[in-house]
């Protein structure tokens, strides 16, 4: 629909119905957003927007007798190793070309938003940390920031810097897994081993700090659960010293690898406008050329005082997303470095006995402290009635927490805006009219975490 659309048409426009019925030949690998089998609806813009022909691909798709229709339905997952969990895709194939895709999710749904309503605000982080299990600190941070905003409190300086340190290290480890699995899916198996090796170093530091490799429950409303362990500077320094050389190695391994380039360049393309329309955030959005980062747009925990760049891609393909993650790792290392340098002395949580428990030593001496401790761990603390939405930039995009309190000790409603959940909507767009062999590369570059999708 290259001509302009009037407002009336926009409202009545028949969504999801365009294109792929009449496949047109395409130049593989060349700016596939320019001309495709799909037509643009919806937004008046220079660049074209693709939509899928009806998201509905039927299980019971049957050919009519004697028709020359050669489409077939391929069911991929939920037990497919390269779907990164339990993602199921119904793919409609025309020969080797993917026409339509329907992501089917919910296989990992555990009702965490319902669970959140029976947990106190103090217990909340232990629930949300299990959502995006590759970026648990971001989940905890997002929830804690929402609770703190309703409480109207500000955490101490040290707690803020610690939060930045941990979340940015977490971003590095998460991106390392994304690159590792991306490599594995395309056949660069050594990339998988390297990625997990470096991640292990960061997880070892997390384990030393929080006691757990994942699901930390460390960032809590009011601050953090504990202080950094002795010798943390040395650990972080080691990570920062090791990584740059290793990342140069990966780049050598992949960027100079013709097979890798063949399989990633021009594959899984999505344009900036498509990203906006489908609420795609994070590296996928930035790889499409939009310099949008919540750390810049809506800063949290004092991230605006750190120096870092927001890398942006050009083509929005698998290769750009891979490059972008490498750049983001380097930028996150810059932030970690600054956080380490400026780490102020002081409390790691707010000194308010109604919100955070007293120090362990005080409990033996003070009746007051014992009471406060008991109250917080049995019934939690109350949060004034209100509602708020807080978002942080997780490694996958905008991770939001919509929190509604009724003035009690438990949330009335806790909703997580999961980046992987929204980003999955990009799959039908990215995969339309591409080769079926590119499917795994595309999924991997999107880096969905099914715990985050299904919650």
């Amino acid at each position, binding site marked *: 629909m290259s001509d302009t659309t009037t407002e009336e048409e926009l409202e009545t426009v028949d969504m999801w119905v365009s294109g792929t019925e009449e496949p047109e030949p395409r130049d593989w690998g060349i700016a596939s957003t320019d001309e495709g089998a799909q037509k643009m609806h919806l937004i008046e813009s220079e660049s074209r927007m693709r939509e899928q022909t009806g998201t509905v691909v039927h299980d019971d798709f049957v050919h009519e007798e004697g028709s020359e229709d050669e489409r077939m339905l391929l069911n991929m997952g939920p037990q497919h190793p390269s779907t990164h969990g339990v993602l199921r895709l119904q793919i409609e194939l025309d020969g080797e070309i993917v026409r339509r895709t329907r992501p089917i999710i*919910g296989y990992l*749904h555990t009702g965490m938003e*319902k669970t959140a309503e029976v947990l106190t605000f103090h217990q909340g982080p232990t629930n949300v940390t299990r959502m995006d299990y590759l970026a648990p600190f971001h989940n905890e941070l997002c929830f804690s920031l929402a609770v703190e905003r309703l409480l109207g409190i500000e955490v101490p300086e040290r707690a803020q810097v610690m939060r930045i340190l941990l979340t940015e290290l977490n971003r590095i480890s998460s991106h390392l897994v994304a690159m590792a699995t991306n490599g594995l899916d395309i056949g660069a198996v050594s990339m998988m081993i390297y990625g997990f090796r470096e991640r292990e170093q960061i997880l070892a530091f997390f384990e030393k700090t929080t006691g757990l490799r994942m699901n930390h429950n460390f960032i809590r409303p009011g601050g953090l659960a504990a202080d950094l362990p002795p010798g943390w500077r040395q650990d972080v320094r080691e990570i920062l010293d090791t990584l740059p050389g290793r990342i140069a190695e990966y780049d050598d391994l992949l960027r100079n690898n013709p097979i890798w380039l063949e399989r990633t360049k021009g594959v899984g393309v999505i344009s900036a406008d498509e990203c906006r329309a489908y609420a795609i955030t994070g590296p996928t959005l930035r790889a499409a050329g939009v310099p949008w980062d919540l750390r810049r747009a809506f800063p949290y925990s004092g991230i605006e005082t750190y120096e870092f760049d927001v890398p942006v891609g050009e083509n929005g393909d698998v290769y750009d997303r891979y490059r972008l993650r490498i750049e983001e790792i380097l930028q996150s290392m810059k932030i970690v470095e600054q956080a380490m340098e400026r780490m102020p002395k002081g409390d790691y949580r707010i000194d308010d006995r109604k919100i955070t428990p007293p120090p362990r030593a005080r409990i033996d001496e003070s009746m007051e402290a014992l009471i406060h401790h008991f109250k917080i761990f049995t019934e939690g603390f109350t949060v004034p009635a209100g509602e708020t939405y807080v978002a942080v930039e997780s490694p996958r995009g905008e991770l939001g927490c919509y929190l509604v309190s009724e003035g009690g000790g438990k949330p009335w409603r806790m909703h997580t805006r999961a980046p992987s959940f929204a980003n999955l909507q990009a799959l039908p767009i990215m995969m339309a009219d591409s080769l079926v062999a590119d499917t795994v590369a595309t999924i991997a570059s999107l880096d969905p975490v099914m715990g985050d999708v299904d919650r």
Partner: protein
Amino acid sequence: MTDDKPTAGAGAAPEGVTSGDDTGAGTDNASAASVAGPALHPGDDLDGNPKAATAEEVAPRAVPDNEILRGLAEAFEEAEWTISAGQDVVRVPAEQFAEFGLAAREAGFEVCVDVTAVDWYRKRRTRFDVVANLLSHQHVLRLRVVTAVGGDEPTVPSLTPIWPGAGFAEREAYDMFGIVFDGHPDLTRILMPDDWVGFPLRKDFAVGSVPVQFKDSHKVT
């Protein structure tokens, strides 16, 4: 499934689920009941203290401060603008939900980040709030659009024709709350199984009442 409407099996709310709904005929006055939200059972906190003061600085404003929002406010006179914990929130009547969305997109809100719902069961006269989070990249601005709906089959116009990215989120809200988004191209369950009865995130859907298969398995054979 090319029908826009949900199938009867998935869409029909079971009798028991909605029977406790306080939304009676005649009380469903969205604009009056929604903002103040008269609590039918004002709850004291666990200590028995009176209810804590609201952090939500609900100061109804005739006109929002921001220029872009002011343009929207002029176009929609029935919308009520508030600031909740420092964020712009607008309440619109349910029938204007999509209309407002279209105007908002033209005003620069290119992204609909999220659509969700809140169940005010026995707290408010109009049972559900449908909440859409809008984001503008060009103006670096957020706006939360809230609308109140009640009834046995709460229905609001869908935002998916305006932002296709709202599609998954609206399916989730339908799946969890039974909110029907009129005009959604594929309103089916997304997280729960297709044959699930009831809407899990409603307040009258009990936690842990699902029979587990292995409990009865010894009786079989």
